[in-house]
């Protein structure tokens, strides 16, 4: 005995084609069963379609998400017929393969069909999960995946924020370290600066005192009428005034240099006398170390290229590089002298600064006759925080910062070292005035 009337069978046919088309991923066939005004409400939070286009997009997405065909088994189907309207309710087991795993869901759907023109068309679909299947926190598969995706997105967002925060903290720490490295090298400078200022001040004071005496003598000679002697004294006064001015300017430039050194580097490029800069920092470094350690002594020499042009650099930055390289050089020759073996009694610690004008670029070399840098650490010395000094004595940032500063000037910082013979750091800077 047929289960359905002929009319009911027509409705069931449309209904089943609609479902099986989904299982077979035939979206066109599926929507041929639908009215132009079809709507849909599903179980999920946003499984809602207000028109055919939305519903179709939702279906296409679903199909794309699950590349393998579904299988649909009807558990039961119930149909109610009205005038040119029918309601079909069914429960299906919906099996799908996700990443090779079979998952099955029990789904209930209620479908409303209208007889439009000459065929039954689906006008509304309502999907749900049967009450007895809905444990708390249990969702349909697509919903589960969507939720999982949302959780993951949230996690990615949180992690990104955490990483951004860490990065900002690292940057802040780095700039603090750079500042403390600057301040540390300023501290090293202080004693040298005190000595370097004291000397010219002594000259200023001494020559001023001499001039007071000479003026008195000049008056005496004039009263006596010894014009020749008076002229000689006047010449001396003039020479002394020149000396006062010269030493006053020397102290002035030291203070200016010190201020520049402590200033943070928003420095601007200016044409700089490389030889004078190297000489200034060589003296500051030497006297600084001398003041700290009275037993320290080393020979220092300069071999300056007299044809050195003025080079466009940020003088306090390159000064910092020079100070750092020269301090290191004095440090290693002093270390070598402290640990002399009996065989090397003739060892004389020595640091030499050599400048060379090479036309389109210039070279500043800081050469020491220390023990040299062992081969195995030579490629590490420019890394931040690498130091061979005892804990607390070096930040390990000096050479790394120097490297960055020279690079920022479009130059290069290289090292040559021979075990037992010494090390030479070579700064190369472009001379941009020559094209």
């Amino acid at each position, binding site marked *: 005995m047929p289960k359905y009337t002929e009319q009911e069978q027509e409705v069931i046919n449309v209904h089943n084609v609609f479902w099986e088309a989904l299982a077979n991923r035939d979206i066109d066939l599926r929507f041929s069963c639908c009215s132009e005004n079809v709507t849909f409400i599903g179980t999920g939070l946003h499984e809602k379609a207000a028109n055919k286009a939305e519903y179709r997009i939702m279906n296409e997405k679903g199909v794309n998400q699950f590349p393998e065909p579904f299988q649909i088994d009807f558990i039961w189907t119930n149909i109610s017929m009205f005038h040119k309207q029918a309601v079909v309710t069914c429960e299906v087991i919906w099996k799908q393969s996700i990443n090779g795993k079979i998952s099955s869901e029990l789904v209930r759907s209620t479908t409303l069909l209208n007889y439009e023109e000459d065929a039954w068309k689906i006008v509304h679909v309502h999907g749900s999960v049967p009450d007895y299947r809905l444990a708390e926190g249990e969702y349909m598969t697509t919903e589960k995946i969507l939720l999982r995706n949302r959780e993951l997105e949230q996690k990615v967002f949180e992690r990104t924020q955490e990483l951004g925060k860490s990065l900002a903290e690292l940057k802040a720490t780095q700039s603090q370290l750079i500042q403390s490295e600057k301040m540390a090298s300023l501290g090293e400078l202080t004693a040298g600066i005190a000595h370097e200022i004291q*000397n010219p001040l002594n000259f200023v004071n*001494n020559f001023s*005192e001499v001039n007071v005496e000479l003026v008195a003598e000049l008056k005496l000679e004039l009263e006596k009428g010894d014009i020749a002697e008076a002229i000689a004294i006047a010449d001396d006064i003039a020479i002394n005034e020149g*000396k006062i001015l010269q030493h006053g300017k020397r102290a002035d430039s030291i203070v200016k240099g010190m201020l520049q050194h402590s200033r943070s580097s928003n420095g601007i490029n200016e044409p700089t006398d490389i030889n004078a800069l190297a000489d200034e920092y060589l003296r500051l470094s030497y*006297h600084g170390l001398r*003041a700290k350690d009275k037993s320290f*002594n080393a020979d220092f020499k300069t071999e300056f290229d007299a044809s050195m042009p003025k080079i466009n650099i940020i003088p306090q930055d390159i000064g910092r590089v020079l100070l750092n390289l020269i301090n290191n050089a004095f440090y290693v020759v002093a270390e070598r002298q402290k640990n002399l073996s009996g065989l090397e009694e003739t060892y004389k610690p020595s640091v030499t600064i050599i400048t060379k004008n090479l036309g389109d670029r210039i070279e500043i070399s800081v050469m020491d006759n220390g023990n040299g840098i062992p081969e195995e650490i030579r490629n590490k010395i420019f890394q931040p925080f690498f130091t061979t000094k005892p804990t607390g004595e070096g930040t390990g940032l000096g050479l790394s910062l120097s490297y960055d500063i020279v690079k920022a000037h479009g130059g290069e910082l290289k090292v040559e070292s021979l075990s037992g013979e010494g090390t030479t750091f070579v700064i190369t800077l472009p001379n941009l005035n020559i094209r």
Partner: protein
Amino acid sequence: MRILIVDDERDIQTLFEQRFRKEIKNNELVLAFAYSGEEALKYLDEKEQHAILILSDINMPGMSGLDLLSNIKQKYHRPPPLVMMITAYGDEENYNTAMKLGADDFLTKPLDFNQLKEKIKNIHHD
């Protein structure tokens, strides 16, 4: 009386020549200058008998004033010249080392020339 002044600051020569202008003019003093410890030793090797007083800076590149002092006191015995040390760092350590090495006096920068003149006068009278 000949005084050898040792300092790496070259302007020290002008300063001393002006400060001792009268003494030089009256042939009471002859000043000689050396700009490093090494140069001072060379001078003494050549003209030992002439320098009665040596005034030396301590803080110089290369051979320090203290090295020079110990060198002079070990090498020259007949009689050794007087050596006065001058330093910008008037600290105890330098003072003690200088005295141990046989320094005859210890002066700090900036030099008090009136005091120095007194000291030189006293040497004269001894």
